[in-house]
């Protein structure tokens, strides 16, 4: 089983949208896919009409390592969800109590090995112990970049952080999110950054109303409007992510 995480230090940049759409695309490709909504806000769970509730909370999940007991099938065939829970806001504390605080998430995922081909982690925005767990579990970090100078700085921060981590770290693939083609800076950065920075995919998810309306329709764009340019951008992102996961792609950073 491969593990992909949508991650950003910043919030509201399109992590959850990417996670649910990539989940639907992976399932459509025939991969048995599980999405773990690690964000206590539970946006991914909400999008799939699943209560953000885990019996016993994050504490029991990390302790007992029985994810299947609380998982739910989504409306997308082949995609199951490990829902969010409000108690995940204290997941750092829970992980810190364990003997091996950096591997709690990985151990839960290990229980799904053999039953799933792909796990997607939708992460809360932060750099915390949960994030370090995600870095330890994931094969690939997908990082949404809103085209702005500050976002690039945030990506650099993440890279520096990963470079200082002793354990093996995931590949990093950044992609543009919430792109507004009417803005000159957005157009310029989308054009130039993939050439200037290694590990930046030339994929731009547009800042389209169809993406925002996902919250209303509660369905991924790739299934509700598969021909929309946003859906096609997610498809392109999935193709690039899959190439990296299958070992055929390049992110500009060798797998540690």
């Amino acid at each position: 089983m491969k593990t992909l995480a949508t991650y950003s230090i910043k919030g509201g940049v399109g992590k959850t949208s990417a996670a649910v759409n990539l989940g639907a695309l992976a399932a459509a490709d025939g991969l048995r896919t599980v999405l773990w909504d690690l964000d206590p806000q539970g946006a991914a769970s909400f999008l799939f009409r699943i209560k953000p509730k885990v019996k016993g909370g994050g504490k029991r999940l990390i302790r007992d390592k029985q994810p299947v007991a609380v998982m739910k099938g989504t409306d997308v065939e082949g995609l199951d969800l490990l829902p969010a829970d409000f108690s995940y806001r204290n997941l750092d504390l829970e992980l810190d109590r364990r003997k091996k605080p950096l591997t709690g998430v990985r151990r839960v995922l290990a229980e799904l090995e053999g039953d799933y081909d792909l796990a997607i982690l939708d992460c809360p925005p932060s750099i915390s112990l949960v994030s370090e767990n995600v870095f330890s579990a994931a094969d690939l970090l997908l990082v949404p970049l809103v085209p702005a100078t500050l976002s690039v700085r945030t990506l650099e921060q993440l890279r520096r952080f990963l470079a200082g981590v002793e354990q093996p770290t995931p590949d990093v693939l950044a992609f543009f999110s919430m792109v507004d083609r009417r803005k000159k800076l957005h157009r310029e950065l989308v054009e130039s950054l993939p050439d200037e920075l290694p590990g930046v995919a030339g994929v731009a998810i547009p800042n389209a109303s169809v993406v925002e309306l996902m919250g209303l329709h509660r369905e991924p764009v790739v299934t509700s409007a598969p021909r929309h340019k946003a859906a096609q951008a997610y498809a392109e992102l999935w193709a690039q992510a899959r190439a990296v996961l299958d070992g055929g792609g390049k992110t500009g950073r060798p797998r540690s």
Partner: protein
Amino acid sequence: MEHYAAVAPDPVDLILPASLDQAAALALLEQRLEVTRGRSRISDRTLLDSFDGRLRDAGLRAERPAGRSAAIVLYEPGAPSREARVPRARRHLATELPDGALRERLAPVLEERALLPAVRVRSSVQTLAVLGAEAKTVARIELERPELVRDGGERMPLAARLSLRPVLGYDREFDRTLTVLRDDLGLEAAERPLYDAAVLAAGGRPEGIATKVKLELPAGTRTDAAAALVLGRLVEVAEVNLPGTLEDLDPEFLHDVRVSIRRARSVLRELKDVHEPEARAHLRDELKWAQALTGPVRDLDVQLLEWPELSAHVGDVRAAELEPLRALLARRRDRERAKLVRGLRGKRFRAAMRAWQALASEPAGPGPDADKPIEAVAGKRIRKVLARMLEDGGKIGAKSPAEALHDLRKRGKELRYLLELFGSVFPERAVEPLVDGLKDLQKVLGRFQDRAVQVETLHAMRDDLAVEPEGPAALIALGPVLDALLADQQAARKEFAAAFEEFGQAAGRKRVRKAFGS
């Protein structure tokens, strides 16, 4: 701690009554359940399996979707589907499939058997989502109207089905839906999976064609009746394997024809006082001829099947140098196959098959053993062959000629056929250990003999090989191959004593001797 597995309830297939057309079925479901229609599609696919139904037996399903004639998709419960680009062909041996997950999974299942088209089914499928609170999908339904598509394109409707499939974490909703479908709507569970129904409707056997002859003869069966039953089943197996042999679909077809012939010859040899002597002698001659007719291609098949193992003796580089030898073997096989096909299509072979059928279906002649119970006649033969084996084998030492081992192997085959064909009338606890001991012994003797035949065949090809382009290099590379074969033959010889001793112990047990009437 309770352990949860990542499994939901099994899907359930229900049969829709013929009186309910698609519109009526949809209306009924929409009336009784909270459902929303999903996409509808046409699913046109050909199911592939081996002649003996190995994939079905292993819980696998291979399909070639129509319209995507270059793809084969393999489905296995609890595993992702595996797909490969495989251009349409009349058959696919595992070795002919492209490298990858599909081949990796199929090769150990298929072994030497080919993947063949079994049945084509074309369905219109309407998907429906069963909705729970907040319009969440809690179960899935597929309404399928399948048709069997025959070779000429003629279509035959099969019973329409409703397949109810679970969504993880919604077991209660699944049960509730099933109750509505079964109890309120009165839908009945399908007796068999769709493909089984389609294969049956096409006149085939879903489980494939068994080529093993396993007969349960009641004790006290007259010997002529037992002989007729066994000969009848054997000729059936030979007949059913002939088309595949003629079409050269896979090497097992010819092998099974040959095994049937050999077994029939064994029945005639062992039960000599049952049939009318002239008819028996005639059929024995004809089967001997048929065995000889089919021999050369089988020998070359074995050489080619064992090629990877054979060339592995010399390493990758020299294995490439051996290629002219493989090509020569393949050309010889083509030549011999042409002779075989002429022979199998010829009058003499057809007449031999008729004579075989006749002896299996007509009342036996006035032989003195005809009305004796089979356990008496077969038991006597088993005792005799066993005693002879023990005597001959006991005399074999380190310096005995190779013929002594070859002869012992022939006796072993005689015994094996007697036990396989008539073993059901003897106590299982006596037959089983004897068969097990015999199998191990025959394996060693078989290796000894096969290596000798291989060395002889390859030796005999040296002159022809020398005049081939790149032939001299192949000849040099052949040296280590022959050495390895001879070394393996010697190793088998060394293993003989232990295998024979074990066999002797199994055969010498009191209950074994008693079972066969000593």
